[in-house]
């Protein structure tokens, strides 16, 4: 197992300088996620317009490079996409991380695909899967406006 496959430059960059970090001024959906074993936590905010488009989203929290990078990349990719599309991406993400499926059919720009796939290395590090998936679970909870924080121990 090669560590540089897990910690690609893109991940290190997003881990150290997360995009869309902070609390949105205007949001109508939010949810919290927590990984009690590691202490990773995330609070996700998003604004969903009447047509079901995520016009903006951001996150706050702390965690390891994988969890911060995954959150940062997720917010970049999901921004300006529909809720339906976001759900599809979520499914694709879990398939990629857990079953090592590739993304042939996914409808993303080349740049987005590279970002999305930068997290695929986690597949070879089962102990770290939770770190990468926490934000996506939290995204789902945010769409549902779930009050109870997501607990990665219970889900994955």
């Amino acid at each position, binding site marked *: 197992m090669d560590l540089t496959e897990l*910690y690609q430059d893109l991940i*290190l960059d997003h881990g150290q300088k997360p995009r869309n970090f902070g609390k949105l001024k205007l949001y109508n959906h939010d949810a919290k996620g927590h990984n009690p*074993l*590691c202490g*990773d936590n995330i609070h996700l905010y998003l604004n969903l317009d009447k047509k079901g488009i995520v016009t903006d989203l951001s996150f706050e929290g702390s*965690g*390891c*490079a*994988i969890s911060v990078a995954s959150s940062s990349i997720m917010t970049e990719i999901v921004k300006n996409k529909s809720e339906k599309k976001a759900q599809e991406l979520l499914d694709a993400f879990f398939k990629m991380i857990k079953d090592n499926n590739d993304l042939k059919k996914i409808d993303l720009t080349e740049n987005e695909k590279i970002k999305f796939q930068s997290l695929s290395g986690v597949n070879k590090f089962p102990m770290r899967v939770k770190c990468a998936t926490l934000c996506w679970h939290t995204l789902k909870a945010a769409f549902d406006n779930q009050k109870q924080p997501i607990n990665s121990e219970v889900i994955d």
Partner: protein
Amino acid sequence: MSISVTSQFPIFKKYKKLVYLDSANSSQKPISVINAIDNFYRSKYSNIGRGVYTLAANATEDYESTRSTLKEFLKAYNGDIIFTKNATESLNLVAKCFGENFLNSGDEILLSELEHHSNYVPWHFLRKKKIMIKFIPVNKDGNLDITNIKSLITNKTKIISLTHISNVTGKKTPLKKIIEVAKSKNIPVCIDGTQAVAHTAVNIKELDCDFYAFSGHKMYAATGVGCLFMKDKWFEKFNPFLGGGGMIQDVDIKNITFANGVSKFEAGTMPAAEVISLKFAIDFLKTTKIKNIEKHENELISYAISKFNKMKNIIFVGKPDKSSSLFSFNIKGIHAHDVSTVFDQDSIAVRAGHHCCQILHKKFNIASSLRVSVGVYNVKQDIDALCESILKCKKLFKIQ
């Protein structure tokens, strides 16, 4: 180094590259302990305390002689030792039984900010009875600040429960001074000795505490067995903790009377093989000599601290103590879990997280840390491998 016992631990034959620096979490097992369990099931097994036949009598004798061995090992002559599931259960027993009979609304319990969750959560449950919990504070070095101990212990303080050695900083609690004050006010003291028993000589009689809790699995014995020393007087004063077989004297449709002594607190079938493994673990500790073990472990930790001090961007949790078997740290700019993944690639086992001490971590404004903890089987090369891996980690994350 003064001792060489690594060859007695089969795990290091199986995983030649393993650098196990997580003994504070649980220790590896020597062959004598593994054989004892195997032998018990192969040629000595029966349930204890139930049958009159020879096999049962012998098993019971082995079980009970473990208790005597433990009492002698810890100089626990002024009370007796109850077997439980783990240190956590031992501490729950004290909190529940003491809380039931001796705590009322407005009473105070004194703990410290260093406590493992297992010496806080069971007491927290008593807040339902409107009981106040106070904490001895930790200073910036991660040491307990007992300058105000006399005012922290008030007329309302009904019990004090403290760790013997912190499982995050490795520091010994100044128990003698605290117990002195407690005694002068007739306040019982409970000690969580989980990180002490396998690493330093413990003399319960001299400590003069009322309760002393620990786990077998951190002292080279099997999982599934914990211990609780209680001073004699509490055996009558406490109601039973759990109800069931083995803890009764007489049962009828209306009334039940309970057994006396340790039996009152050992309900149901006990983990006999695991308890007996503890006797062999103590034999191992006695043969290796706790004095030698402490010296060996302190040397390794001193060596590690001096190497760490030469590296940049290492932040210790509190001030590390050279006379210890563990310390915790972070690498500035890299999350503990990322570091731990890098270590794992080099077969280095180190615990990353809050080590069940969130109060202490929050005090230092961190969510997690890495804990290096050594046992009898560790050698200097393990520390060297750890330092190598830290350099590798920094390189990967582009940190100096």
